[in-house]
């Protein structure tokens, strides 16, 4: 029996999770908050990859496993695939998603006319960027957990140089 949950419930839960970890549990320690969020993502990715690879044979190499993440895994999670995959064939992969669903609704304040000083504007922008990057620790953890369950130890970071496209950089530990 398939049980379903509304997508907005999941989105709101994730927003609240990031907000509580950043503002309440580890209010002054953003690195700890980031690590906890990433650890939660790790567990989730671990379990999800177990479910989604149930009927498949073992993957022959790292590239096949990454392609599974880009296509089937991403489709199960977000109903779309990763738009662009790049690799340097030496253990680094860049997964680019041009319209990442969990970031789709984030938008920063437009600069108002009365900006007190240039520093205010940049601090506001930095704050927005750091909040956005906090939201990305969870999907990084999911990717890391999924890959580790497939036998690939790696480190995953996110790159938000141009929103709403975001890239996940996977570095496999040889």
């Amino acid at each position, binding site marked *: 029996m398939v049980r379903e949950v509304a997508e*907005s419930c999941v*989105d*709101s839960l994730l*927003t609240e999770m*990031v*907000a509580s970890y950043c503002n309440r549990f580890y209010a002054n320690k953003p690195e700890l908050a980031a690590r906890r969020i990433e650890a939660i993502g790790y567990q989730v990715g671990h379990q999800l990859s177990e479910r989604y690879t149930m009927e498949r044979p073992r993957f022959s190499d790292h590239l096949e496993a990454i392609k599974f993440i880009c296509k089937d895994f991403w489709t199960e999670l977000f109903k779309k695939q990763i738009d662009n995959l790049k690799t340097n064939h030496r253990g680094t992969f860049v997964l680019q998603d041009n319209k990442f669903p969990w970031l789709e*609704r*984030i*938008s*920063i*304040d*437009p600069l*108002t006319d009365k900006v007190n000083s240039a520093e205010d504007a940049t601090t506001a922008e930095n704050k*927005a960027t750091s*909040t*956005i990057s906090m*939201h990305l620790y969870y999907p990084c953890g999911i990717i890391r957990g999924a890959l580790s369950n497939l036998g690939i130890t790696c480190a995953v970071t996110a790159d938000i140089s141009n929103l709403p496209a975001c890239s996940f950089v996977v570095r496999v530990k040889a």
Partner: protein
Amino acid sequence: MQFFGGSEISPSPPVPTASGNNGHMIYMFNRNGVCLLYREWNRPLRTLNAQQDHKLMFGLLFSLKSLTAKMDPTSAEKGNLGVPQLPGQGCSFHSFRTNTYKLSFMESPSGIKIILVTHPRTGDLRDSLKYIYNLYVEYVVKNPLYTPGSPIRCQLFNTTLDQYMRGIA
């Protein structure tokens, strides 16, 4: 009971009947009277400063709503003053028209009031207001960087709203 019915996730906008920039201003208030959004596209005359203008608008609508509810000849039960009602229940005014402008109003069950001031020949804008409420839910409420109850400062919402307003009559 679904609030806006329909099987789609967000209702498609009503078909525009004329092109051109006919929307003059939009106000959005929350339940406590905080002005969440004020945007103007075409307002030649301003008589009050912004704060007074917002307070006046909120007070006007509050009084108009309770007046129309109290004067309703068909229903015996009058709702409590100030409490927003579900769309089918009670009696709530939705627009008034003068010779120079038309004001359309919608209140959601959560108390969000949307007011749209357009030119006087505009048709019924209730579907447009529902679409704007949907935009609000998508781009403001679901935005992790927004705190409820504070004025709306979301780039995405502003651009989508401007684009939509350019397309309706």
